[in-house]
């Protein structure tokens, strides 16, 4: 492949990853790392460095727009960031001590269960109002956004906050232990446990993934894994894609976003179980 074709293909891939990441609340690492290593033949360390940059680019590109349209909830994001960042710090400290394979296996099984649970609520556009959670009331974990598809303001309030917080702690622990992003887990915790509207879940995850990834970005930079010739075109493409993705997302139904999210969840469950069983190395 010629250098120009390489950069052009890289840019186009990054635009798509940024767009998908902005809509689904993911950093794009789950899409970018396999594409960069398998299709572009990029060294795994550089692919991971580019991925962490892409997570922050997605977050910066999308969260600014989502905060403006009130889809991203700063209070919920910061409250849950307490759990993810603390989990990531503990995870980084425990790396090498904890049996990661067992953890991956347990997580894979939990994700498989969540995939089935998400499948059951696939047609639910907005969660039914439930009994108020005392923690949600105490910390104001609620909000309102204008839904362009439904053409009305949608009010929401978090439920099962303890479950969501624990899931976020697990997500952070995992990203610290294994060096992987955890956007999918954040969306799952907000959508499945805390019963927030799917759009609010993905938009708030977008705000949060930048914060969680910033915690480990310094490590990648110091290791020399962030190569400017690779990471910069990826970041530029992702920023452009994420900005476009935010425009598309507001016009999508919550159910459509959940349907697009489900295969990612299933893929994660399978890959975690296979890794836990030692059947898959990357």
């Amino acid at each position, binding site marked *: 492949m010629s*250098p120009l074709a390489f950069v052009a293909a890289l840019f186009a891939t990054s635009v798509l990853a940024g767009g998908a990441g902005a809509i689904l609340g993911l950093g794009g690492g789950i899409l970018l790392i396999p594409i960069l290593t398998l299709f572009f033949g990029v060294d795994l360390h550089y692919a991971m460095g580019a991925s962490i940059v892409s997570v922050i680019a997605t977050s910066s590109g999308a969260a600014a727009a989502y*905060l403006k349209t009130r889809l991203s909830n700063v209070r919920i994001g910061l409250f849950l960031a307490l759990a993810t960042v603390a989990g*990531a710090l503990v995870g980084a400290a425990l790396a090498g001590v904890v049996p990661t394979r067992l953890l991956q296996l347990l997580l894979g099984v939990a994700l498989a269960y969540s995939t089935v649970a998400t499948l059951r609520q696939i047609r639910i556009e907005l969660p039914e109002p439930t009994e108020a959670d005392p923690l949600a009331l105490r910390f104001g974990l609620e909000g309102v956004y204008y839904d362009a598809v439904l053409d009305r303001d949608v009010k929401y309030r978090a439920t099962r906050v303890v479950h969501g917080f624990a899931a976020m702690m697990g997500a952070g622990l995992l990203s610290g232990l294994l060096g992987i992003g955890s956007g999918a887990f954040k969306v799952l915790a907000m959508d499945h446990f805390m019963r927030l509207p799917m759009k609010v879940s993905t938009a708030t995850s977008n705000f949060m993934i930048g914060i969680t990834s910033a915690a480990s970005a310094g490590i990648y930079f*110091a290791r020399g894994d962030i190569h*400017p010739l690779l990471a910069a075109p990826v970041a530029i493409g992702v920023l452009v894609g994420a900005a476009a993705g935010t425009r598309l997302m507001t016009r999508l139904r919550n159910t459509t976003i959940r349907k697009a999210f489900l295969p990612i969840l299933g893929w994660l469950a399978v890959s975690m179980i296979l890794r836990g069983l030692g059947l898959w190395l990357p």
Partner: protein
Amino acid sequence: MTATRTVDRLIGRILMVGGLVSLALMLTGLLIYAAHGHPQAREIVRVVHNRAAGRAVDVFTSLGDVRRALAQRPPDPLAVTALGLVCLLVTPVLGVAAAVAGFLRAGDRDYAVIAGVVLAMLLASFALAAGG
């Protein structure tokens, strides 16, 4: 709710400006690099495929590296790109710092503390990365 909207807008503005500044720096560095016809510009495919080759030529591993390369005359264009990447990496941290300030100004002590704890943990992780 109004206080929250003010904080939302403040963080949103920080994230947008951070994104745009880093975008401008990365693009400028890459364009100058390509225009100067650096040998590695034609070898990008080889460089990113081979970690040892890539590290030898173009990778910055500290802010000191970036600063020294920017101080050269003419400045190293890839250092401009690397500076853009650094700007991007610190943007979320600035967003959280803005949240602390915004919630304090709005008199919301609970969330000023929550954002402050998140910021402290982020700074601790940077310190750990620098130490490691």
